[in-house]
């Protein structure tokens, strides 16, 4: 069988890629998407752990994570829509009020 560590490696790489995507992208929407990527990487890691320890709790957690992620995505998108309505832009560079 495929050792869980391989899956874990994939999860780690996925997470770091998600982080990079967050920093490289400039619009709010894509940054939000990269957050989803990070969440998924976390899910993968959980499952790898569940497999390696033989406990099914890992899958339960994954289920919950997916559910919460869905709820979060809904709210997040609603907020982004509001921001877009007000500022007419979702470029993060332009979404700042501080003069620092």
């Amino acid at each position, binding site marked *: 069988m495929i050792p869980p560590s391989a899956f*874990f490696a994939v999860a780690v790489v996925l997470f770091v890629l998600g982080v990079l995507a967050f920093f490289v992208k400039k619009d709010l929407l894509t940054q939000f998407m990269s957050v989803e990527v990070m969440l998924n990487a976390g899910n993968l890691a959980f499952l790898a752990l569940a497999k390696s320890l*033989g406990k099914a709790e890992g*899958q339960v957690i*994954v289920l919950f994570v*997916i559910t919460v992620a869905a709820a979060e995505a809904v*709210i997040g998108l609603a907020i982004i829509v509001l921001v877009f309505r007000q500022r007419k832009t979702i470029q993060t560079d332009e979404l700042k009020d501080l003069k620092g």
Partner: protein
Amino acid sequence: MAWTVFFILSFLCIGSVAAMILSRNQAHNALFLVLSFSSLGGLFGLLDAPFAAAVQVLVYAGAIMVLFLFAIMMFNLRGELPVRVKKARLALTAGLGMFLLAELFLAGRKLVLGGAGVAPAAGGDTARLGHFLFSDYLYAFEITSLLILAALVGALALAGRKEGA
């Protein structure tokens, strides 16, 4: 055989995320992620978690990303703006990313010791999952449904208002 599938799926998953980073078109980004999440679902299956795999494809790839696509279509952004990332910042981020990578590898090394893993107990994976959900994690389960309701109402309240009148 399993290794081949694993590599293909992993490649797809990571590759599409990489492609997402490189692409500048928002719709493309979203679609790449759909691909990524789907292959992730496959990976879930390889990990003896069929229910999770199914939920992943249904909810994540199928619902959440579609929501994103709706949002993209609503914003109707034309083209993309030039990327103005400073070289220094890029280098810094890349460096930090490498660092994080290393750290996480180190962290995981102890936990996931490359063992073959334990085979799941008999009785079916999904049945066991259900058993957990409705006994040990019942409380969390119910809260989650409330959460979804709250998210629904909240989204409506936030974005349901029309501009102007």
